[in-house]
């Protein structure tokens, strides 16, 4: 079975500082990778996804994630965070041939003014 590890349960950071949220997954022949964000009192929503092609994927609000096959990682980064980025971030992996994504435990990003 696929497993997803988000080592950091909480990441505090000051506004305008860079941030990296880490995600590692157990190896598989082919995977599809996702980051979801959950703002307070809201449902999870897709932030970005890696399907194939370029290993660097970007979201519309400045986040990016890089697929690293050799390290089985899909870390999420943002060069300058905003207060409004405060939320829970979940990494998810779908093994090729499966309908069902497996989620990590989540990382709480807390942006301080």
């Amino acid at each position, binding site marked *: 079975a696929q497993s*997803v590890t988000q080592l950091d349960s909480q990441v505090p950071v000051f506004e305008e500082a860079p941030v990296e949220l880490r995600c590692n997954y157990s190896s598989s022949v082919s995977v*599809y990778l996702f980051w979801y964000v959950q703002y307070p*009192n809201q449902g999870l929503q897709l932030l970005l*996804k890696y399907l194939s092609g370029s290993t660097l994927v970007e979201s519309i609000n400045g986040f990016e994630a890089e697929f690293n096959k050799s390290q089985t990682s899909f870390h999420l980064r943002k060069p300058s965070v905003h207060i409004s980025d405060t939320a829970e971030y*979940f990494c998810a992996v779908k093994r090729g041939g499966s*309908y069902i994504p497996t989620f990590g*435990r*989540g990382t709480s990003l807390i942006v301080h003014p």
Partner: protein
Amino acid sequence: GAGVSQSPRYKVAKRGQDVALRCDPISGHVSLFWYQQALGQGPEFLTYFQNEAQLDKSGLPSDRFFAERPEGSVSTLKIQRTQQEDSAVYLCASSLPGQASSYNSPLHFGNGTRLTVT
């Protein structure tokens, strides 16, 4: 509606009671998923429907949990004889594709139902 709707938003049940949680997926979405999210944890898979067919129920923790989607749209997750360990947020998600070639499709989540068993 515009998104996935779940009701009730909050549910408090006494241990031993039965509960029913409802999910209205986005209109036309073929695939429907139920997840359980315990406090401080990520969503854990419970069951998956493609239209009215329950294709995977491997995540249901016990035979007290039952899910149905009789007409391929609205789904209900029922928990019988609730226990304290059932306390969690139950998430429903849907996605449009139901084809094997669409494994990369993202999920659209509802806001969840927070179940508290006292």
